[in-house]
Each structure stands twice: as C-alpha cells, then as structure tokens.
C-alpha cells in the first residue's frame, strides 16, 4: 500500500513523458498526478490503525543480499511518517499549481523534476531500510539541484552548487555510519536492527554509539538546518523559484528533523540523551538567532528563510525534549511549518510574479490594492507567528510544554525558546506592516491585480489546513500517540539499561 | 587385411610427403584457390597418418578423429569458398598478394 502511494508520481512521470505533447499538457498531467497521489494518500489515513505503534501497510522483499548482509526493499508507514507523507502529497499540488505561470522555459523538464522530487521525498519518508533510505535521500538532491540551477534567480548556479555540496558533505558521514551499522547487524532494515538492539544481539560501546549518532546527526543537522550550519539555506531559498522554495521549506527541510526522530532517537538512545542538552542549546540559539536575523532583512524571501531556522529550532527542541509531548509537538510542528512557510513562500511568490522584486521597501499599502490577497497573507503570517487557534500555536505550545517538563534538558531552555514567540511577532509584523499596511504610496503598486483563481486555489487549501490543525490538533496527535509513546518508553528503558 | 602387409612407416612417409607438398603449396602459390587446396592436402595428409596409426594400434580413436577432421574440412570448404567468392566480387582478383589492406 505504501508502495502504491510513493510510486504514483514516478508512474505519472513516465506516462507524462510518453503521452503528453504540449506545455499545457505537461502542466495538467503533473497536477493531476499529484492530486491523485494526494487522494490515494488519504486512503493511508483512512486505513491507518491508530492503536498500533508498529509499521503499517508494509511492503518488503529482498533487494540485494549476500553473505552476512541483506538490503531490502522495505517500505511502510507509522504514526510519525504518515503525517510527513501527507504533508508531501499535500504540498506538491500547490507547488505545481503555483508554477503554471512562473515557469515558461523547459516546461517538460521542469515538471519531470517535480514528479521525480515527489517520488524521492515520499521514498525518504516510507523507507524502512537504511540503504533504501540513503538512496532516496540522495535522489532528492538531484531534482532540487536542477530546480534551483535552471529555473532560479540570478545567482542560481552558486546556490545550487552550495546546496548540493553542503548536503552531500553531511550525507557521506551518514553513509559511513549506515555501512558500519549494516555490517555489524547483517541487515540494513531498521526494525530488524532495533530488534537486535533490544535483544542484545547487537551491542556497541558508548563511544561508538556517540560517533554513530554524530555521523547521522550532522547529515540531518545540515538538512534541518541547525544553527550554525544554516548558511546554505538563504541562498537556496532566495535563488530558487517559488515552487522550489515551497518544496524546500515545506518538505525537504523536514527530512532532517524526521531523520532525527526516525533514526537517531531509537538507534542511539543513550547518545541522544547525552547530546540532548547540546542540541537543545543549538536549537534555542537557532530560534533566537533566526528570529533576530530575520528582522534585519530587506528581502522578503530571505526573511522567511531565516524564520525557518527559527521555527525548525522549535522542532529540534521538541525532539530532544525526549518526551512524548515534545516529540509529538515536533512532528506536528514539522507539518505546520511546511504548511505555513510553504504558504508564506507562495504569498511572496504572488507579489514577485507581479513586481519582480522581493524587497519589502518596494511595497507598502498592498492591502488596499489587493484586499483578498492580503487577507490570505494575514492568516498565513499569523499562523507562522503562532496565533492560538491556528496551526503554528499548537506545535509551539506542545513543544514548549515538552521542553518545560523534560528530564533530558534543563528548564531554562523553555523561557529562552518562548522568547522566540515574541520575536516571531516582531519580524513577521515588520514584514506585514511594511508590505501590506501603511499608505499605498508607490505608483507602480496601485494597479496590481488581486489574486486570480489559480493562485486562490493554491492558497485556499493552506488556509483550510491552517484552521483544521489549529482547531483540531487532537485528531493529528491521536495518530502519533501509540508510536511516540512507545518510542519514549524505549528510550527511557534503553537509557536505564545503559545502551 | 593380413594379406597385404604394408608397414606403417610407408604410410607415414607418404603422409609426410603430402604434408610437405601442402605446406609448400600454401607458401608458394598465389592463387587463393590453390592455397586452399594445399590446405586440404595438409589436412588429408594428417588424416592418412591418423588412419595408419589407428590400424597400427588397432584402436578406433584414430578413425574417429579422421571423421572429425573431414567434417571440419567440409565446413571449412564451405566457408572458405564463400569468402573467396566474396573477395573476388570486391577485388576482382583472388591473388593473395593483393590482399593486404591492413598493412596499408
């Protein structure tokens, strides 16, 4: 079942290459594929057993195996990955829809990369075999590299190369760690490795555990990105086309945080416990630093990019609170950030398409010229700011709650992180005020057309999800609860046993 | 069979003579067909020696080999002649000294 969902974009892509003939057909074919993928992924939610902590809808068979090792095609979803899969399938149609007008050159190639991207990202989230995971992890780089490098802004090549190198550098360490683990365990399948760890068939020393944790952790930390490894992000975001930024912020960054939850916590619980305060400290620095730097920006996209660093700091803090409220909050916040920040990039993209500038100083009083658009933008800005009743708040609150009650990290992280809530209002309202409020005093802004239907269709689903998650977060937590509860218990057991 | 007692040496001698004739033919003639026939002569010289030794030792293996060689020779004739015809078609000559395209 999981296979069906994640293979759909690939099938759609192949069919598109064979059947579609004109630019218009490429667009609609891709959009249809991504919508169908979303619709089918809804079946995952419907068929999901909330009470089970294990993997569901598993597909598994041997891929490459030999003496003393086995690599499997092993996919499945659990309470954590289901929402990331849903996030991906939800964001993709919006990203595709938003590029109908913006992308006019090499259309076929562009949409091919979009579907390839979706396939690879879904692969990352469903893969349960380390090797398979690694393959998809690397495959995601390729389409993104080209999305930035071909359809980006002026300095696209620089940004694309930087993005690629940064991520590669991290993932090489991860590859080493994966090979080591696979060699020791004789299998690359994560559930099997975990089983071996639990039964004591696979034991490694504290020091080894820490090294492995770091090898995985650095790869993920670059992707998140955690302060101070964030410097590829503003470049990538500013240069990427709107849809690229949406995907990058919406889904790609989540692969990092997801990696921490999926691999670092269960595989190296003792090391997680050891490193938790340090990572939490970096996360808190990231929260404040990102928010502070955002306020100093003149370019909207850059502002949003830095705000991502701040938001993902919250996610990291939640994960390394190592309790269920923190981790569940973090997982929900990944989804929230995907929706809100994806939405923010769409919002910025709308203005960029009209004025071809992202400098805040070029605007002012847009609310008067484009009332509908500004209303939508306001809701998304508020959700990003964490207004209660909208999605951002639920994640932030549960994360802070987790951090405040955590045994793993010290109490003073919480008030510092909560400062980020004030600072978020400072930079977000700074942007909203300078762009949307105030007088409409620039001649070229006076005749800007309001949202057209296509743009509205891309933004309305975001508004809906902002409200649904904001008001009914309980529904989303229910899916994770069994899995995260288990994870937290396993961690504390493992820490107690000194693993 | 016992009546005509010809010693095996004579057969071998004949075979050697035939073989040397074949060798000389291959080395000296320029006509591809004659070269080809000389090769056949060498093969049959071998056949004769084999048959002779087989009789000498009263063992069927030699005969067996002869049949093999004949089969191979037949196949060789078919392929070889076809090649010669093909060469003649393109070069209008079967003089082997004309055939040194690789050298040039």
């Amino acid at each position, binding site marked *: 079942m999981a296979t069906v969902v994640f293979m759909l974009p690939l099938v759609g892509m192949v069919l598109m290459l064979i059947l579609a003939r004109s630019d218009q057909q490429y667009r609609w074919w891709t959009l249809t594929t991504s919508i169908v993928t979303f619709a089918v992924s809804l079946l995952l939610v419907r068929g999901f057993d909330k009470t089970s902590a294990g993997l569901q809808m598993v597909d598994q068979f041997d891929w490459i195996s030999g003496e003393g090792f086995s690599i499997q095609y092993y996919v499945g979803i659990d309470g954590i990955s289901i929402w990331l899969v849903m996030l991906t399938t939800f964001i993709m149609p919006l990203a595709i829809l938003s590029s109908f007008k913006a992308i006019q050159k090499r259309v076929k190639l562009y949409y091919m990369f979009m579907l390839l991207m979706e396939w690879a990202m879904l692969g990352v989230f469903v893969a349960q075999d380390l090797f398979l995971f690694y393959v998809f992890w690397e495959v995601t780089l390729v389409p993104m590299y080209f999305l930035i490098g071909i359809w980006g802004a002026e300095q696209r090549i620089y940004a694309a190369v*930087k993005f690629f190198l940064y991520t590669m550098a991290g993932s090489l360490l991860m590859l080493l760690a994966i090979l080591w683990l696979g060699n020791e365990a004789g299998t690359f399948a994560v559930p099997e490795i975990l089983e071996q760890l639990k039964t004591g068939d696979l034991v490694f020393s504290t020091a080894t555990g820490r090294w492995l944790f770091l090898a995985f952790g650095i790869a993920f930390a670059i992707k998140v990105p955690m302060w101070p490894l964030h*410097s590829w992000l*503003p*470049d990538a975001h500013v240069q990427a086309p709107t849809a690229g930024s949406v995907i990058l912020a919406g889904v790609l960054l989540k692969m990092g945080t997801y990696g921490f939850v999926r691999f670092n916590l269960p595989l190296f619980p003792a090391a997680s416990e050891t490193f938790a305060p340090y990572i939490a400290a970096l996360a808190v620095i990231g929260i404040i*630093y990102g928010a*502070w*730097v955002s*306020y*100093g920006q003149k370019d909207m996209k850059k502002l949003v990019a*830095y705000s991502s660093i701040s938001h993902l700091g919250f996610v990291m803090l939640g994960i390394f609170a190592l*309790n*269920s*409220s923190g981790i*569940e909050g973090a997982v929900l916040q990944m989804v929230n950030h995907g929706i809100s920040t994806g939405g923010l990039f769409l919002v910025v993209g709308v203005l960029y398409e009209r004025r071809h500038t992202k400098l805040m100083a070029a605007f002012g*009083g847009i*609310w*008067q010229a484009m009332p509908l658009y500004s209303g939508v933008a306001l809701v998304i800005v508020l959700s990003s700011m964490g*207004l*209660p*009743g909208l999605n951002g*708040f639920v994640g932030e*609150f*549960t994360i*802070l*709650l*987790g951090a*405040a*009650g*955590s*045994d793993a990290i*010290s*109490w003073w992280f*919480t008030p510092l992180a*909560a*400062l980020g*809530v*004030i600072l978020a*209002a400072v930079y977000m*309202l*700074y942007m909203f*005020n300078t762009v949307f*409020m*105030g*007088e*409409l005093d620039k001649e070229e802004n006076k005749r800007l057309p309001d949202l057209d239907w296509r743009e509205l269709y891309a933004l309305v689903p975001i508004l809906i999800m902002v409200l649904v998650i904001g*008001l009914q*977060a*309980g*529904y989303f*937590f229910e899916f994770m*609860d069994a899995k995260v*509860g288990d994870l937290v218990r396993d961690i504390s057991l493992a820490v107690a046993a000194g693993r | 069979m016992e009546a005509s007692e010809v010693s095996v040496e004579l057969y071998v001698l004949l075979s050697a003579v035939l073989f040397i004739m074949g060798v000389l033919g*291959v080395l000296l003639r320029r006509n591809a067909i004659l070269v080809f026939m000389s090769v056949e002569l060498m093969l049959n010289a071998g056949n004769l020696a084999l048959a002779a030794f087989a009789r000498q030792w009263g063992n069927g293996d030699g005969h067996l080999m002869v049949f093999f060689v004949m089969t191979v020779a037949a196949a060789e004739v078919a392929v070889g002649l076809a090649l010669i015809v093909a060469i003649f078609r393109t070069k209008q000559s079967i003089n*082997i*000294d004309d*055939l*040194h395209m*690789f*050298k*040039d």
Partner: protein
Amino acid sequence: MENYFDLVPLVVLIPLVGMLTNLFFGKRFGEQGVAIVAVGASAAAFLIAVILWIAQVNTGYVPAVIDMPVLGDWINITSAGLRIPWEFRVDSLSVTMMLVVSGVGTLIHIYAVGYMHGDSRFPRFFVYMNMFLVFMLLLVTGNNFLMMFVGWEGVGLCSYLLIGFWFDKPGGVGWKNSDAARKAFIVNRVGDFGLILGVLLTFWTFRTLDYYKPGEMPAAAHHEEAAYEETLFAPDLPEDEHHETATGPIGVFNQASAWLEEGDHEVNFGVISLSLEATITLITLLFLLGATGKSAQIPLFVWLPDAMAGPTPVSAFIHAATMVTAGVYMMVRSNVLYHSSDLSSFVVAMIGATTAIVAGFIAVGQWDIKRVLAYSTVSQLGFMVAAVGVGAYAAAMFHLVTHACFKALLFLASGSVIHGMEHGHHHLHEHGHGDHGHDDDDFDPQDMRFMGGLKDKMPVTYWTYIFGTLALAGVFPFAGFWSKDEILLDSIKHGVNDGYLSGYLAFVLLLIAAVFTAFYMWRQVSMVFYGQPRHAAAEHASESSNLMTRPLIVLAILSLLIGLINIPSGFPILGWLLGKHEFTSFLGHSVTFAHAGSFNFLLATMAVILALGAIYAARALYNDKTLATLERDPLELDERTAEAFALANAKLYWDEFYFKYIIWPYRNVAYWLAEKLDWEIWHDFAHERLIRDPFNRATQFLAEPVDKGFIDRNFDRLGTLVRRVSDRMRVIQTGYVRTYALSVLFGALLVVILILLPVLRELLGL
C-alpha cells in the same frame, strides 16, 4: 433550567456566523445589511448571556461545563497526559463577563453604525468587531487556560486590525496607525510570553489546564476574616452556599486548594523540584506579566495610548470596556492562586496602584481628547489590578463592570465630539469659511485646544459626558462611587485588618490617583464644553445622529445606576431596599475568595470630598478666562507646575526610554547580525574565504603542478615510448599471408622440435 446552559456555545458561534456572513457577503449587503447582521449577532449574544444569567440564578448558581459542538478535543496527547478540550464554562464570573462584553458591545455596535457611516471599508469594520466578540467571549467562557489564551491572543489580533483600520490615511497618518497597531501587538506578545510560561508551569504542576473539571464545584473559601470582628472595618460575608466538594478528576484551582491545605507539597519538574508555594508565586508572577500586557499596566502600558489611532468605537469597546479588562478577569479567575501567594499579591497591588497614579499624572498633561481617556483607562485598570493585589477580587470585578459602562460612555461621547468637530470642519470647507480661526493645516479634530463651548452645540453629548465624568470621578451616587469606594475600602482593610503593607501603600496611591482622576476629567470637560469655541470647526460643530446619541443615553443611565448592583452592607436605606452585596455574593459562587467590606461612611465622604475638591480646582483653573485662549495650559504657565506639566505632557519619556534601551539596540543588533555576522562573516568570510577559497587553491595546486606537471607528464612519456617501440616493430607486418603462414610454419616446427627435444637429447647422448 440546566438545559439552557447548552446555549453557551452560541454566545461564541453567533458572532462567528455574523462575522463570516459579513466577510463573504458584506460587500453585497450594503451598509444597512451589514449593520443588521453585525448588530443582530451582538444582540443575540447578549440575549443568550441574559438567558444564561437567569438560568444561573434559577439553578442555584451551579457552574456548568459545556462541550463545543462538532469539534473534538483541541489537543490530546494521551501519553503525556495532556488533554485540552473545547469546553465552555458557565458560572457567575463568566456570565458577568459575557453580559458586560455583549451588552456594552451591542450598544457600541449600534453607535458604530452611525460613526462609521460612509467609510469605504464599512463591512470590514464590522467583520472585525464581530470577530472581536468571538474571541472576547471565547476568552471569558473557556474552561481552561489555553482556551482563554486563544481568546487572549485573538482579541490582540482584532485590536491590531482595528487600531490599524485606517492604515491607508494619507500624509503619514496611515503609517503611524500601522505602527501603533504593530506596537500594540508586540507589546502584548511580551505579556503573552509571561502568560504562556505561566500556563506551562501550571500544567506541569497540576497536570491539567482546566479551571475545574465538569461537575466540580469551586472550593469554598475559609474566610479568615470571620475570625476578627473589628469595629471599624468589620467584614460582611456573603452567605456561604458553596456545595460539597466534588469527587473525580480535579481541576487546577481545587487541586491547588487541596495541596495548600495539605501543606508542604513539593512539585517535581523533571530536573528540579520546588515547593508548591514557590511554584504558585512563579505562576502568578508570570500571569501578572501577561496581565500587564493586556491590561496595560506598568511596564507594558505604552501601547494603549497609541492604540487610540483606531476608530473611536474601537477605543470604547476594545481599549476601554472589554479587552483591556481581560487581564483583570484572568487574575480574578486565578484568585485561588493569587490569594495563596503574598509576594505575588504584593507585586500585583504595587503595580496596579503605581500604574493608577502614573497614568493619572500623565493624563493631566495631554491635549488629545482620546489620549486623556486612554491614560484614564490605564489608571482605572490600575485600580482593578490593585484590587486584585489586595485580595478584593469582587471589588475588582465590580469596578470592571462599572468602568466598562462609564468609560465606554466617555469614549463614545468623545467620539461624538470628534465627529461633531469633523462635521464642523467639513462645513467650513464647504462654505468657504476657512479664513477665520486657526491655521487650517494644523487642525486636529481630537485636539482639545481647538474645541471649547460645545456645551450648547452638542447638548446630549455634553450631558452624557458629565454623567460619565462624574461616574469616573467617583461622585455619589454614580457607579464609580460604589466601585472605587469598595476598592479603597478593601485596600485599607487589607492593611489595617490583615496587616499587609501593600494595603496601606495601595490605599494612599489609589486615593491620590482618584484625585488626579477627578482633576483631569474636569479639565477635559472644561476644555471641551465650556468657554467659547476656539476654532471655527468647533463653532460649526453639531450634534451627532440619533444612532450615536441613543447608545450614549443608555450608557449614561447605566453609569448612574449600575453601581446599585453591589450596595455595601451598612449603607443606609439603599442597602435595605436593593439588597446588600448582591454582585459580590453572585460572584462568590465562582470566585472562591470573593468578599466584600462593610460600608465606611468616613472613607466614602472623604473620597467624595476629595473628588469634588479636585473638580472645583480644575474648574477654577480652567475658567472661562483661561479657556478663551488656550494655546498653553495654565499649569504650563505657572512656573511651579510647569516642569511637572512638561513631564506629564511627554508621558514621562517612557516611550523614549524603551526606544533608546530596547528597540533601537534590538534593531541595530538585528542589522548587524543580518548583514555583518551572518552574511559578511559567516556566509561570506567563513564559507568563501575559509572553506571555498582554500579548497579552490588546493584544487589549483593539485590540478597544475601535481596532476599536469607530474602525473600527466609521466604518462605522456610512457605513451611516447610505446609509440617509438611500435614504430620499429611495425616493419614485421608485411601484409602478405604467405609471410604469416611461413611464420606459422616456423612456429609449428619450433613446437615440434621442443616436443622432440628429449628424444634428440637421447639420440645425441646428452
């Protein structure tokens, strides 16, 4: 009667429907349609609040907890024990707030229909107003701290939108309005920071955020006051009809009471553990930070005066009557916690009393009619907060109710004045009278220096204004008299009877603040209504429409009478006629520590005399002569008070202080971080100079000398060698089959010879 409680979600949902209707169809409706929907929604909410109130009275004040229809639990993390449902709470406290919010709200909605007439964004204004009702009612009806927080930030959002409603005014005003809106939101966020931390702490202390679980009764207070029956300030207790303690799950407040009674309770927070008392002190101080933001107390009051940039109905509704009282409501709701922490109570009392006097002082030096009222609001909120600090929760609520009426009245009346002034100004332009009066470019319809003599032009406004002023000044028998007196009484009682220093301090500060109140209010009345018009616009001002004056009249009547709901015991005649402490005992069913003091004749007389004295002084100072030419304030002209006036006029340089020490440094550091540290140093220097450039140089080195210079050259040499050798060898290849055949023959011969070698060796005898 219990069934009626199920209506409570409608209190929130009806305004929500009104808001959505106007949001989507407002443009098609036209002004009238929009007005009907918005006012209707507000009135319906009020109606339901009244029904709930009656139901409360008739069911013996049993609190009810009602689930939100349709929606499931908001947040539910079973493995962490966290469950935040959407639950409404109907008890006397929330019903009081509902009545105030929707009642005053409805009147202001009606008024606003007149006030906003002709505005280009008329529908949107009412969308925001209804949205505000949604959030405000959610704030007061929620049954847990987080739901309150939804309303809490939601009203902040509405406040932001409404302060910045005229963001597009030309000539820099639009930007100023936008900035004021942003300031309000951000300052409030600072308060919310405290509140949210307090909520986190509350959860980890009590493992729930519900005030009370469904079916649970608020614990009865152990009225220590009953122990002493002192003659002067003998307390009069509301009769105790609290119900037996509940069984089953237990909410925050009862848990706190139970643990406090138990004593020596330690709270574990993972790594550290604290005593319950310390924890509660911390929680209440954090809540206080939230309250100082929302209720505009020191040090976060700076946003409220700027918030007057919004349309006047907004100032009346949000920034005087309802939203700003949310902090007081929250502290009264948490009275169990505040009551148990002496330190927090002390801090609360001091902040409230100091705010009351500081804001009262600043109000004296303002020229803008709305700014005076804004500082007055801050000051009155200080009264309420101080009341919470001295443990007079009922008095705080009482003052909240009366203040909502008379301050809404004052704001609306001031709006009417502004409207009249603008009208006069328009009139001037239309009829070309621009040549007399002041320089027209400087005209500001809100500046009291341009007014004067409006008494006769706007009689209804004038008389209602007088009612509001007298109520605010605390003159008998207006509403403010009863509530302010109650607070003063409770403060001194807190000092004398309970021996708390904060009681004395608060009493003195509040008494002085009350004098200020009477003074600046009458200064305002004199400037606006008495004397002769000082500007042509004032001369041509005219009374506002009925739509605006009718709500004024209703509010004026309320300002006169609303105080009667809580006649103190010991008051002659009225108390016997109307019942004693009706309101306090009503509140007592949900506010554990609600109590009321007995009337003290001496104190009341003193307060009234002080107020009247201040009024007299104000009128004496701002007499018709000084009012005739009011370029500068008489206080400014008198050298004894000139400095003080300048200080008040500059708002004690409070904003400047924040700008200098917080905002500018923050902004400069942000630019430094963004441009220098993150970009030039980290992005450019560290990555380009330290990583990329050395890498490039190393690449260069490997490419040029190492690869090209050494490895590549040697391979080239090898290649040359091979070629030379092969040049020699190619001679062998003749191309004649014969030559090859010969070599094959020689080869064959060689093989044969090698095979025969042993034989030859034998033959040769070797």
